[in-house]
């Protein structure tokens, strides 16, 4: 009896802790949701502003003592950071509302990178301990457990903020305009509302909530410069489970996620890391628009993708590509082993980015979890060499089959969704795969990874491996290009541009996109298998979010409206990242600034920019056959 009571009380205490954690998560997630609802911007920098809120609050509370000073500091910190957010919206995002939506994600990702280094510059690399909240320093004893009194404040704060937001959105003109703009912002403009300021104010409110969420954390946890990404992923999960644009949904989902975190570690320690993503996947499969979300109409589907018709290479372009490949294969005569290792990695990421580019541009599906298939291919190759003792050649061919199987399984569920929901479900599947690799220690070695994935003798040297990587990458990109201009590619593009019309002429959209997803996953797996042999080892990091994000950045840098832009994007991004890492301690600041600059200067990506310049300046005579007709010609 006592044991049962003790357990019951323990469960209760654990639930209280979950509720307290939910408050900050709700603040951050509701801000993200509101911003997305009105501006359709997936604000990747949201976690960075959360972190800034915590850091600025730390500095202010350090300066201003007393109860008034402390609470005033939290509020002031949130206001300061909100002003910074508004500044970012006006200086950066306003210029790029008209470009494809993912570019805004890329820009905010660049800002995130910059903030990461700026925070270390301003506050140092060490974790910081904030002061306790005046008046809430102690603990309350409940059922024999001590619960910090600050937790009770947070528990009350969540519903209070939910109530205030409800009043704001239903009882003020501003709130009504925001809700109207969430549904149809063009109509709101036609009724005389200046969207510019509506967007800026919505953005400021969203950032205010994120920064307040961060500031409120300082009495509970240390302030660290890694807190941005962890909260970002959780906030995305909350927003998606709750339903995009729904504040109440975000509240429910924040409580759900926080309780899952609180209990998961106790009840299901084996799958604690994956539990939240598992729940998100289940919610999305059962309710594709989240708990309280409504299907929203994409502002304009595949905006601008058909501006320049895609064409196979003209003879001149084919010669140019052949020349580039020839030049690349001469690299071993020019640089040493280090350069060749870098070269191999670039080739591998060219293939990875090209496979993501395929599913994003031809398939019209923005995957946020493409690393899953890269990592599955790597683990597949590692299993075959380390556990089964197969040679490299066999592992390179058979290893990607694991990625194929994963893509077939996850893709079957994912292609039922579209837009951000598709992106989030793919992210969830990638995180599930990551945590399997991380937590199934007996097979995968967990965090220690799998070592001893060595290439065959002929490819063991830097030169041999470079040529192998180059050969595989060239063949892979060529195969993907051939698919673009095959009947399968045409059918896919039809389904992308108008799902209804494609189905009306007898195309099975879901099946087509599923197949494309499998193709993309398999090529990513091939890249992953190569990476395993390049590194001689495999780690859960291969499946991590940063790899997926790198892939997205490469695709967007190259240009989503191009056939093979990802190749250029991967070369530029990977080379720049590796070079910066070796040159400066502030590589993220420089890289982030470079990304922001590229987004502003080349909103159509590098290859898109080159194509624009070519079409503008090269006389029609030099362009080869049929380009000026403006219509796509059969290959």
């Amino acid at each position, binding site marked *: 009896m006592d044991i049962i009571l003790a357990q019951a009380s323990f469960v209760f205490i654990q639930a209280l802790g979950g509720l307290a954690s939910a408050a900050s998560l709700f603040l951050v997630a509701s801000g993200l949701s509101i911003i997305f609802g009105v501006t359709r911007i997936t604000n990747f920098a949201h976690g960075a502003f959360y972190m800034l809120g915590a850091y600025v609050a730390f500095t202010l509370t350090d300066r201003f003592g007393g109860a008034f000073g402390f609470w005033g500091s939290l509020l002031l910190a949130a206001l300061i950071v909100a002003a910074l957010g508004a500044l970012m919206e006006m200086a950066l995002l306003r210029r790029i509302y008209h470009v494809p939506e993912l570019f805004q994600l890329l820009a905010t990702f660049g800002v995130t990178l910059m903030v990461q280094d700026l925070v270390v510059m301003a506050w140092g690399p060490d974790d910081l301990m904030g002061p306790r909240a005046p008046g809430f320093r102690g603990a309350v004893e409940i059922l024999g457990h001590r619960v910090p009194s600050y937790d009770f404040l947070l528990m009350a704060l969540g519903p209070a903020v939910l109530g205030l937001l409800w009043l704001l959105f239903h009882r003020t*003109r501003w709130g*009504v*305009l925001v*809700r*109207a703009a*969430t*549904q*149809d912002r*063009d*109509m*709101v*403009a*036609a*009724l*005389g*509302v*200046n*969207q510019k300021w509506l967007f800026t104010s919505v953005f400021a409110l969203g950032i205010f909530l994120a920064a307040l969420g961060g500031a409120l954390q300082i009495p509970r946890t240390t302030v660290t410069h890694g807190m941005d990404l962890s909260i970002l992923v959780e906030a995305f999960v909350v927003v998606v489970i709750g339903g995009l644009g729904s504040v109440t949904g975000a509240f429910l989902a924040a409580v759900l996620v926080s309780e899952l975190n609180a209990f998961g570690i106790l009840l299901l320690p084996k799958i604690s890391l994956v539990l939240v993503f598992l729940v998100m996947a289940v919610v999305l499969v059962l309710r594709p628009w989240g708990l309280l979300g*409504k299907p929203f109409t994409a502002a304009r589907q595949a905006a601008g993708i058909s*501006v320049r018709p895609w064409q196979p290479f003209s003879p001149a372009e084919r010669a140019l590509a052949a020349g580039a490949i020839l030049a690349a294969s001469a690299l071993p005569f020019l640089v040493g082993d280090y350069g060749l290792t870098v070269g191999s990695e670039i080739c591998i990421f060219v293939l990875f980015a090209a496979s993501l580019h395929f599913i994003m541009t031809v398939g019209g599906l923005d995957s946020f979890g493409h690393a899953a298939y890269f990592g599955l291919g790597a683990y597949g190759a590692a299993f075959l060499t380390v556990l089964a003792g197969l040679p490299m050649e066999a592992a390179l061919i058979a290893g990607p089959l694991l990625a194929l199987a994963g893509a077939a399984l996850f893709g079957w569920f994912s292609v039922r969704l579209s837009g951000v929901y598709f992106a989030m479900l793919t992210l969830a599947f990638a995180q599930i795969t990551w945590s399997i690799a991380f937590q199934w220690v007996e097979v995968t070695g967990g965090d220690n990874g799998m070592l001893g994935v060595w290439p065959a003798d002929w490819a063991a040297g830097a030169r041999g491996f470079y040529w192998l990587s180059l050969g595989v990458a060239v063949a892979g990109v060529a195969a993907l290009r051939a698919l673009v201009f095959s009947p399968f590619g045409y059918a896919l593009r039809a389904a992308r541009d108008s799902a209804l019309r494609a189905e009306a002429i007898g195309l099975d959209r879901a099946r087509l996109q599923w197949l494309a997803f499998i193709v993309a996953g398999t090529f990513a797996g091939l890249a992953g298998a190569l990476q395993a042999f390049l590194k001689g080892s495999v780690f859960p990091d291969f499946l991590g979010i940063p790899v997926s994000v790198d892939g997205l950045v490469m695709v967007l840098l190259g240009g989503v409206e191009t056939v093979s832009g990802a190749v250029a994007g991967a070369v530029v991004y990977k080379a720049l990242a590796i070079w910066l890492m070796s040159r400066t301690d502030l590589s993220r600041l420089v890289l982030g600034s470079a990304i922001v600059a590229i987004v502003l200067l080349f909103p159509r990506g590098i290859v898109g920019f080159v194509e624009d310049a070519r079409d503008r300046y090269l006389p029609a005579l030099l362009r080869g056959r049929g380009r000026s007709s*403006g219509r796509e010609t059969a290959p």
Partner: protein
Amino acid sequence: MTLPVSSLQISGLNAWYGPAHILSDVAFDVGAGEVVALLGRNGAGKSTTLRAIMGLVPRRTGTVVFAGEDISALPPYAIARRGLGYVPEDRRIFTELTVEENLEVGRQPPRPGVATWRPEQLYALFPNLGEMRRRQGGRMSGGEQQMLTIARTLMGNPSLVLLDEPSEGLAPRIVEQMADAILAMRQQGLSVLLSEQNLHFARLIANRVHIIEKGRIRFSGTLAELEAQPDVRDAYLAV
């Protein structure tokens, strides 16, 4: 002579969707206090004309002068704020918002020399709306939504209203209510430019008509002049 409170002069208006050239040198005008119908078949360019006037098409050239001011280069919200109201063909009411809230989105400050509309007056004009002030837009019938979209635009106190096919898809009884509402608007001194396929509806309310076909104005004149030329009517309108 006093300047007209509102008048719209359009000249050399061209519009494109992507590579498709939709409007070619469209030119016509709407006098103060006039109800003018822009007639044409499906796809003739009626909606695009209205959208181009509001600055809602991606690419256009030409001049739009409204109340003596060139508004060709203004963004849509600024055009609306100058007293040009727009009622889209597909209604586009905010389905999540209540009737009251839909009206609130359209509200603009009073404008000197122009009728000021308050919700109570609009509920009198459209009694159906008055009975469902707290109903969500998504739970209304097509006719009720059509009334709401007009009422919402009137909340901006416009001096001229662009009405895109207000009678489309409505029951005859509702169409009559629409005609009454438009006449009431004219009595308040508003000018109206409406696009219509339905000559019968235009007869009920319009002073003058312009006929558009394949993006060009083919006929401009009074209703009586149009009736006197049955060949024009038969060539450009589905009767």
